């Protein structure tokens, strides 16, 4: 830590970023298809992906954009759904070396995602700005290209195929939440409770009138709040999340 400059270079970052970029492509593709199903123009989908770089937040935002919802709703939705980046950014800020000047802190923040964060904090030493830019490069390209291809495919492919692709993004979400649910009782209950509350908002008479963005926020915060009380997380588990 004394000289505070790490030896990881741009190309080390690019190498570490390759699997993330490859993983992002299909998720972004599914997002692009979803956008086309909702009737969002291709360029708008691309703009969303290139300025947001976040899967869950983008999908929630997409519905609001497609239905021309309110600014309050989109701001509140993003605040809650993306609140985890606050925590990740906090942890990442402890992990950066002296090459991260203020200017570069402003720029690198754009690229903090779950996966980029996970790789960056797993490095044994502090990371340099060049490493971080390298790390973010391919995920960013994969995310943008995947969206472009998905949105285009959604407009070109036959309807039966597009409808089948419509489930892709949700299937991926299931693939993200199920494995930790089978290992961690807290996560399992959190996931079940949240799904339950979300369904209540969808089906019950009065709750039904709450728009989907707010319904998701309330379900997520309420269930995480309750489960956080009954199932406190050990510090090591949090750091490995």
């Amino acid at each position, binding site marked *: 830590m004394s000289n505070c400059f790490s030896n990881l270079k741009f190309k080390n970052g690019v190498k570490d970023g390759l699997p993330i970029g490859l993983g992002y492509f*299909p998720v972004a593709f599914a997002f692009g298809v979803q956008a086309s199903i909702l009737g969002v123009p291709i360029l708008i989908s691309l703009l969303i992906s290139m300025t947001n770089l976040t899967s869950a937040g983008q999908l929630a935002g997409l519905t609001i954009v497609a239905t*021309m919802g309110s600014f309050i709703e*989109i701001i509140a939705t993003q605040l809650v759904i993306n609140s*985890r980046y606050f925590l990740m950014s906090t942890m990442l*800020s402890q992990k950066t070396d002296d090459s991260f000047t203020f200017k570069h802190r402003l720029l*690198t923040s754009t690229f903090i995602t779950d996966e980029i964060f996970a790789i960056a904090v797993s490095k044994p030493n502090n990371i340099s700005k060049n490493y971080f830019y390298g790390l973010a490069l391919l995920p960013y390209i994969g995310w943008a290209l995947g969206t472009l291809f998905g949105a285009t495919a959604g407009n070109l492919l036959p309807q039966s195929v597009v409808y089948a692709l419509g489930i892709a993004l*949700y299937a*991926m979400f299931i693939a993200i939440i199920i494995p930790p649910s089978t290992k961690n009782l807290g996560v399992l209950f959190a996931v079940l409770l949240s799904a339950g*509350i979300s369904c209540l908002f969808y089906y019950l008479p009065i709750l039904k009138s709450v728009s989907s963005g707010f319904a998701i926020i309330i379900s997520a915060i309420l269930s995480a709040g309750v489960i956080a009380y009954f199932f406190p997380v050990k510090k090591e588990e949090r750091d490995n999340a």
Partner: protein
Amino acid sequence: MLKMVGLVLAMALVTYIIRVIPMAFIRKKIKSPYINNLLYYVPYTVLSAMTFPYIFYSTGNFYTALIGTVVALVSSICKRSLIVVAILACVAVFVGGIIL
């Protein structure tokens, strides 16, 4: 169209502010264990609330979506990767659409 772009930019700005404040301005740890616990669970609860019940209406047909959901759940429990789970669910919906 203009409002659409405005909504997208509002969304991007909020997302950016959440990322940039700790990184560039605070640079401290969150001390409250309860808030840390809550934030640990939020990604899972958000994805869960976004998936259910919306997945059932993602294919334009409740029954094909139900088949796809079951396939996604089972293949996730069998620890298939993200992309494999997605492909299996899509194929199940497509085949279900032909049969039903």
